[in-house]
């Protein structure tokens, strides 16, 4: 942490000294690159942290430039300039936010469609700027733009830009280090799991995109007085693509990387331009090499080197010890889960066939049945992952038919998948923080540091059972299958849901690990006020844990009762005979 501040301060002093040690033209050029770098920081927020690539970022940059250009065509004082600057930030911010919400709400995941939509929007912006001559000056652009009042565009404006860069860097690193930043990273790591931790991920992504739009608008607002002219190229396809390239080359995982990328390529290009006409060939080569060999960009080398010499670059996780108990969560009193004639078919395949059962109270319910019986599908239907065709699923009297995955936890339903699903590039501590925040993190705490210090009694208890989870700084991806299962289990129960769904919690565990897991589940079910449903194949586990067993076969419930009753049931024996006979 300290080291990274030293780096940042020395870079800042370099920037401030730059005009004095070189000439004013170089500083003028650098000013432009820094503006692009600010846009790159926004791209890094979305792409590096959030994992979704905005391909049309020049649109927001250009809107900012046009707004400020239009205003500065007149002689205005600082009052109006402030208004202009705010508009240049707020309008792109809102536009990006609206686009983000609309797109992400329809499509989960970070596929290419979002990127292509942003690209197409930039093209639309370019066309509008070109054709709406009355407003934008058309192809020739806005000309005769004045500088900011009392600020020389070729001189002191540079320092204003450096100031803006410092501001965006501080704001963005604050955002990245906050709970919101961790949620954003978690989207990149495992969006589905984050939804099952009760987060509406489309809002998280849209908010990040809005911030990146606002920042691009701010950079654009300075572009107009800096260049004195704004043409449609500023919101076109080429600049959008170049911004992404610079960010990728510089490094998309940090805030300095994008700036370094733009500045390096910018000066490389202007140096080469005189010596070698086809300098872009070299830039293209560098770019392809970075994509192939150095996915983290040049910035990643810096981080890697500093790690090698024993310096830590990580921005958070070093926050104080856990000191505050988590806020209380409202608990549901009754526990009753009902499936009534639930049918799901996909194509010609019947997945659930009028599945009906009712379970209530505390204790552990084991759901067993041969492969393809529909056990996991039943859990999917229950948590909004699979759409119900007919019938009714209800939990404590409320229907679950139209529930969406991220809503289940607020209804008190927590779920662990069969394959351990964690956030592999985050530390164990961060994985745990994400689950402690469920139902407890208030909206106004999204940017506060307080939630990082939370602890809970349950967490302390689990740290005794699974000692490895108290190793805070370990990256979760380095855990073994068994440990991942245990971490996933920990994350599922930390939000203290009233209904805990565990899909084969012991799959892939060694004998000893299975015993630990069984003990953990048994202890928890005794001390907590939760109902457990466990899907399991290992009869040993069922024997040790179950208070009640449900047997499914071909999408139907064929038996329900204690394990002894199930063992003597003729139907069950017939079904299982195919398995081991």
């Amino acid at each position, binding site marked *: 942490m300290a080291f990274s501040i030293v780096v940042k301060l020395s870079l800042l002093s370099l920037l401030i000294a730059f005009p004095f040690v070189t000439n004013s033209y170089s500083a003028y050029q650098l000013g432009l690159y820094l503006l692009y770098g600010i846009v790159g920081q926004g791209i890094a927020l979305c792409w590096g942290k959030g994992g979704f690539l905005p391909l049309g970022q020049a649109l927001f940059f250009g809107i900012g430039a046009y707004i400020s250009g239009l205003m500065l065509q007149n002689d205005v004082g600082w009052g109006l300039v402030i208004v202009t600057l705010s508009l240049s930030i707020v309008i792109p911010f809102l536009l990006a936010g609206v686009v983000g919400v609309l797109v992400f709400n329809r499509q989960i995941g970070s596929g290419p469609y979002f990127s292509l939509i942003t690209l197409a929007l930039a093209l639309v912006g370019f066309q509008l700027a070109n054709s709406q001559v009355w407003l934008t000056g058309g192809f020739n652009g806005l000309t005769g733009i004045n500088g900011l009042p009392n600020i020389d565009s070729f001189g002191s404006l540079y320092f204003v830009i450096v100031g803006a860069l410092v501001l965006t860097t501080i704001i963005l690193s604050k955002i990245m280090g906050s709970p919101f930043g961790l949620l954003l990273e978690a989207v990149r790591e495992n969006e589905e799991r984050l939804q099952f931790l009760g987060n509406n991920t489309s809002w998280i992504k849209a908010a990040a995109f809005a911030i990146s739009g606002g920042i691009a608008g701010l950079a654009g607002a300075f572009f107009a007085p800096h260049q004195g002219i704004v043409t449609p190229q500023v919101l076109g396809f080429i600049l959008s693509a170049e911004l992404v390239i610079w960010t990728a080359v510089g490094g998309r995982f940090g805030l300095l990387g994008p700036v370094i990328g733009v500045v390096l390529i910018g000066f490389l290009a202007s140096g080469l331009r005189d010596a070698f006409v086809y300098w872009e060939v070299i830039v293209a080569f560098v770019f392809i090499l970075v994509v192939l060999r150095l996915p983290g960009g040049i910035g990643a080398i810096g981080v890697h080197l500093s790690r090698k010499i024993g310096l830590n670059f990580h921005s958070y996780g070093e926050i104080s010890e856990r000191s505050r108990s988590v806020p209380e969560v409202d608990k549901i009193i009754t526990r009753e889960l009902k499936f009534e004639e639930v049918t799901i078919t996909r194509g010609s395949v019947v997945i659930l066939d009028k599945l009906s059962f009712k379970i209530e109270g505390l204790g552990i319910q084991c759901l067993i049945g041969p*492969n393809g019986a529909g056990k996991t599908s039943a859990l999917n239907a229950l948590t909004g992952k699979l759409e119900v065709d007919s019938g009714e699923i209800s939990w404590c009297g409320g229907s679950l038919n139209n529930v969406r995955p991220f809503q289940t936890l607020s209804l008190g339903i927590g779920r662990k998948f069969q394959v351990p699903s964690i956030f592999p590039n985050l530390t164990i501590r961060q994985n745990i923080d994400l689950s402690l925040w469920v139902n407890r993190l208030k909206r106004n705490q999204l940017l506060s540091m307080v939630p990082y210090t939370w602890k809970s009694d349950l967490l302390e208890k689990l740290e005794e059972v699974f000692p490895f989870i108290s190793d805070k700084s370990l990256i979760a991806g380095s855990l*073994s*299958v068994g440990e991942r299962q245990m971490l996933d289990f920990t994350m599922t129960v930390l939000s203290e849901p009233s209904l805990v769904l565990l899909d*084969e919690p012991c799959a892939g*565990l060694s004998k000893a690990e299975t015993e630990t897991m069984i003990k953990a589940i048994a202890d928890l079910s005794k001390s907590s006020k939760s109902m457990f449903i466990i899907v399991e*194949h290992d009869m040993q586990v069922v*024997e040790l844990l179950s208070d009640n067993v449900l047997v499914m076969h071909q999408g139907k419930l064929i038996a329900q009762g204690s394990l002894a009753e199930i063992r003597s049931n003729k139907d069950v024996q017939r079904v*299982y005979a*195919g398995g*081991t006979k």
Partner: protein
Amino acid sequence: MTEKVLEVDNVSGGYGDLKVVKEISLDVYEGSANGVTGRNGVGKTTFLKLICGALPLLGGHVRLYGRIINRLPSHSLFQLGISYAPQESIVFDGLTVQENLTLHYSSSNLDRYTYVFKKFPRLKDRLQQKAGTLSGGEKKLLSFSRAVSEPTNLVILDEPTEGVQSDNIILMAQVINEEKVKGRSFLIVDQNITFLEAFSDRVHLFDHGEQTYHTDGPNFRNDIEKRILI
């Protein structure tokens, strides 16, 4: 004893850095069949994927006739004489049954399959049908028929009986026994012990990613069953 066809030596592996299969060794000899069984999720399918080059090993070696094959791409294993019928995504759904059986050969004739068609006439009736329209059991039959009819020495099958009707399971076992007589070797993962019993020379039991037991019979069923609670 007869020649060693496949030698699996301390093989470990899984998905990414996740170790699902831990240090498993077994040998398959010419003209013999090895069965592998165990509960769901104990690493049987992963084990076969490791042998067939569909996943990279994290440790150990796989040798075919003494030659290390675990660095070779999947398609060259076929050329070296291994045919493999995976557990999932077992046919090309968008292609016809005939195309499924012949796409990897230069000619589309079905002579190689005369024998299995006699056993499973249903397949022959459906040659022009898209494989995606077959039932799960029929897909398994198609996949089984393809794998056993290839000109390979070693046949690796993953859960071949899943969803297949019991009379066809008996026929599958017959086919395997007849092929064994011709000197071909088999490595078969299945949960149906009756099926494995019908042809296996040795049965291995997996649990928690490890080989916990193996037996050469003759009491396969008792040996195995008492180790798996219902």
